[in-house]
């Protein structure tokens, strides 16, 4: 039997089930943003900005010299068999 995610029977706030799938941004029935807005704007936009800035930063760092020393406690040696 395939695993089924059971949709919550009773949300803590008494909202209609589809209302959080709309963009909003403000939820109709409770003092909150809609989930769609929170995910698409408040979560995705910072992540997208981070992605776009992290790649150039990684290229810049790759060309820099190493500035920290390796302490023996940090290094874990894995021995593998070829």
């Amino acid at each position: 039997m395939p695993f089924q995610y059971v949709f919550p029977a009773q949300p803590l706030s008494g909202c209609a089930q589809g209302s959080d799938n709309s963009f909003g941004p403000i939820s109709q029935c409770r003092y909150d943003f809609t989930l769609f807005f929170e995910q698409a704007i408040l979560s995705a936009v910072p992540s997208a900005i981070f992605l776009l800035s992290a790649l150039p930063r990684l290229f810049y760092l790759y060309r820099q010299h190493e500035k920290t020393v390796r302490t023996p406690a940090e290094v874990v040696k894995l021995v593998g068999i070829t």
Partner: protein
Amino acid sequence: MTELELELTWSQVLATTLFLLQLALLVLWRLLRDRGPIASDPVAILNLVASSLITALSHFEHRRSSRPSTLLSGYLLLSLLLDSAQLRTLYLLGHIPIAHVFSASWVVRLVMLVIESQDKTSCLKPEYQSLPPEARSGIINRSFLWWLNNLFAIGSKGVISENDLFELDPKLSADNVGRELREAWEKRSTWHSMIQLRLLTVCRSSGRAFDSGF
């Protein structure tokens, strides 16, 4: 037999945990299918990719930068603040498994922020140990000017002498600033930039002539 050296720091452990938690979130949203917002899956994938970049960035920033990373601590702080709203919404909606995994990832990000903001003075190579505190401070430290506290502590005990003052930041030293100035000057000395400079001067002085009429 091959030997592989892995660097295991707390921030790497936390970053890997974050990646696994984001993966779990993606799986849970996929299981919910059409009953969640349309954006759930793409946003979960985006956050998963972001967390893998956090792992890479954390490693390279630790090795090749003398100060805590602005990008990393800025992103972690921003995402903590904005995701606290989503955390509350998820609990209000009753998506309990997703809410628990989401709060776990929130806590992991918080701990990562604290760790990434620590300064690395004890780990720096000897030639970088003599950098002034400002050059070894991260964005949060510099925003609140906490790096000045040492100087205030010395000052509260007695009179500050020249030896108590910090070394000059290499960026601000006369050699480097002089070199930058010379390079900028040499760039300006070409033929067409002289014309530009003259045109600009003419425009500015005629602008001022009009202003002085009032």
